[in-house]
């Protein structure tokens, strides 16, 4: 077991390293200038480049960056755009994105479960078809399109929610973005729940339970759902990271100070903020890899066959 975990851990670190390397090189060769100031003289730009060590060979810069990263700082730790420190601002934005992400996961899982269960119970009938259509639509419609739709109808036509995100009214502002973001979670969870439930309901032990006279809610809760839930949990975990990082467009149009907006601004603002793009890229990757690592380890614990397969491979 220790060996398995160690192996997974090393693989994860290597992946992260590779991501940082590729990101670093890509950002440096992107067209554009990290100093987005009009009429800045060549002399001033050169001086800035010297200050930041951008004149050195790219691999040396990468080595410098890695050593600073090991010391716990993203580059020189400040934005190239406005000189403000990266970490506290990123944490604040992560918090905002996280709150909305959690809301949407909760909402998405609940609604997804309800739709999935309904579909499974009415397998092959009209309701099943309807639920399937809903979950397919959920995958097809980009969340920001749904967001614009909600903004138009539930803020402009019927003024239920704030038109832009208002930090002083967090909950009511969070409803529309959380709902749009949950669309993908709803469909994923619904599809998995339905399929798993159908499979479990056809299994021998459920048939036995039915034969013993169990029916209705009791049967579903005790025997079907409990067994169907395990694989569903494993789809939800990576969804959490997706939601944290996938809200870029929604955060931008609704004006939420989250990491997604931070990323968009760092790339497509006045200049390419090398430090921010890298820092956010690293954090996003680390989150994703971290969750995958935890899942891998959990799988290994739950199902020894996975460990053995990894050993053979």
């Amino acid at each position: 077991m220790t060996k398995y975990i160690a192996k997974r851990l090393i693989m994860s670190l290597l992946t992260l390293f590779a991501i940082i390397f590729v990101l670093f090189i890509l950002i440096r060769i992107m067209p554009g200038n990290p100093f987005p100031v009009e009429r800045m003289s060549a002399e001033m730009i050169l001086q800035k480049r010297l200050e930041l060590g951008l004149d050195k060979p790219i691999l040396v810069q990468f080595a410098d960056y890695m050593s600073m990263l090991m010391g716990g700082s993203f580059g020189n730790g400040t934005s190239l755009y406005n000189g403000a420190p990266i970490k506290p601002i990123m944490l604040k934005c992560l918090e905002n994105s996280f709150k909305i992400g959690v809301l949407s996961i909760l909402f998405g899982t609940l609604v997804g479960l309800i739709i999935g269960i309904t579909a499974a119970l009415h397998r092959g009938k009209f309701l099943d078809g309807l639920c399937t259509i809903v979950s397919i639509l959920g995958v097809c419609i980009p969340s920001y399109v749904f967001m614009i739709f909600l903004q138009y109808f539930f803020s402009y036509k019927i003024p239920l929610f704030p038109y832009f995100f208002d930090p002083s009214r967090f909950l009511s502002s969070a409803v529309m973005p959380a709902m749009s973001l949950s669309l993908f979670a709803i469909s994923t969870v619904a599809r998995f729940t339905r399929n798993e439930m159908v499979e479990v309901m056809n299994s021998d032990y459920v048939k036995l339970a039915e034969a013993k006279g169990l029916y209705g809610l009791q049967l579903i809760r005790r025997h079907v759902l409990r067994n169907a839930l395990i694989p569903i949990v494993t789809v939800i975990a990576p969804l959490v990271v997706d939601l944290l990082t996938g809200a870029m467009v929604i955060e931008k149009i609704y004006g939420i100070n989250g990491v997604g907006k931070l990323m968009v601004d760092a790339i497509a603002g006045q200049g390419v903020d090398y430090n921010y793009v890298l820092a956010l890229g690293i954090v996003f990757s680390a989150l994703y890899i971290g969750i995958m690592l935890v899942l891998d380890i959990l799988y290994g614990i739950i199902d020894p066959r996975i460990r053995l397969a990894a050993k053979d491979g």
Partner: protein
Amino acid sequence: MKKIFAMALMILTALMTGCGGEESAGNGRLSVMLQSNIVSLDSAQATDSASFEVIADCIDGLMQLDADGKAIPALAQNYDVSEDGKTYTFHLREAKWANGDEVTAEDFIFAWRRHCVESSKYAYIMGSTVACIKNADAVIRKEIDAENLGVYAIDSKTLVVELDAPVSFFPSLMCFPAFYPINENFYNSLEKNTYGTSPETFLSNGAFKLADYVPGAANIQLVRNDSYWDAARVELSNLQYQVVSSSDNALTAFKNKTLNLAVINGNQVVNVKNDAELSKNLQTIPTGLLNYLSFNQDYKNNHGGALANANLRLAISNAIDRESLVDNYVMNGSQATYTAIPLRFAPNAKTGEYFAADQKQFSDVVSFDVEKARGFLEKAKSELGLENFSLELIYANDSGDTVVKVAQAIKSQVEENLPGVTLNLQPMPKAEYLDRVTTNSYDIAITNWAPDYDDPMTFFTLWTTEGSEIAEHWSNADYDKIISDCTTGDLAAQYDERWSAMYDAERILLENAVIAPLYTNAIANLISSNVSGIEFHSVAIERAYKSAKVQ
């Protein structure tokens, strides 16, 4: 299962509570739109007018702009000027920082010294091309210590500034945020690089205090500062900035009453004018932003230096129908401009007339005249021995589609009116655009410039030998001499002579078609009918809310 449903219900009710359709307008609460994030609340980091606007909401300088754009005292109760115009003595009024500290002369000295050392873009404003503060250039170049900067405190309420040359617009310069004070003790108590990054790290002495802000925020909340020295004048209790990048979204938010002030684009202006209700809210505000074509004259540019030929540049400049540009493509009230200085800017201190009031002054070299343009082109062709010119026109396309339409119009006008000239349009993101300009890899750029201070020199210094090294690569000894005479030389102290010398400089500039002026920007605002008293300026601080009211 019951638990799950119970939880679902709980969360849904939690989500629904606090959801109200209450309007954010009203009760002294004003919500205005910003078109992009502000860069920084630290005046040494800020590079954009939006940042300066928010800084000026929160911090007062020695002077402030009145409703007509004239400089009137703010933290300075009054000031004396020495006879030679080189020493200003400002007498500060009783005013407090929001933490209770007195605003002192030392706060100004601290901020100015820091600005010289730390600012990258606006340090020059202290130096010999603008404010001419003694020793500023040497401090900026880090040759001597900041203590040598020509600004002293006689006592805590008396600030003395020594200049190298008399600067006629020095008082109005004091409205620019680079000259605002910073509380030294407060600044030193902060962690490095954190000044102005949150309400806790930003100290106000002005009309408003920061209530909610992170760098890059889409939403900035300010509240009234009750300890402001002029608090009686401030009626708003809340001032909220909302960054809206799409103007369609802005228009809907305005209709929805989420925004009290929204900026719309040319296409929307046409629609709004046809709407009986909305057209009452439309206010077109002229700005000091000049849009122009910058011709790269360096032989290393992409077309091997053909643009170093003045006749080719003149041909292009005279082949453009500027009236058609603003009427058919920009459409937001912007005005065609035939001078190197924008229209409503830099009034003469004696006559009150704007510097560029006479738009026909240079009509022999800047106009729309196809015959004349073709004449220039023929001369260029024979001088260069070329029949065809294929030039690159670059522009940044990530700030709305106006510039895209303008570029296409210029291309079709130039190609139609000048046979043999081809313009290849090259749209690109702003970061790349700026890189192309500064690294000298472009032929023609659609660019713009907003004045930093209320004097034509804020434009003229762009095209001196030193200034145009960044873009046009033009050098003219006569032009340079006039500019240096007017800034630090003999003419600095003689108002009328300086004024007419600047027209001479402008003539050299336009006879050589160093740039082709296009239009002076206007901003089409939708302003709620219950809002009054917002002051608009063409220089430094674009909008001010100290006297704004919401009924």
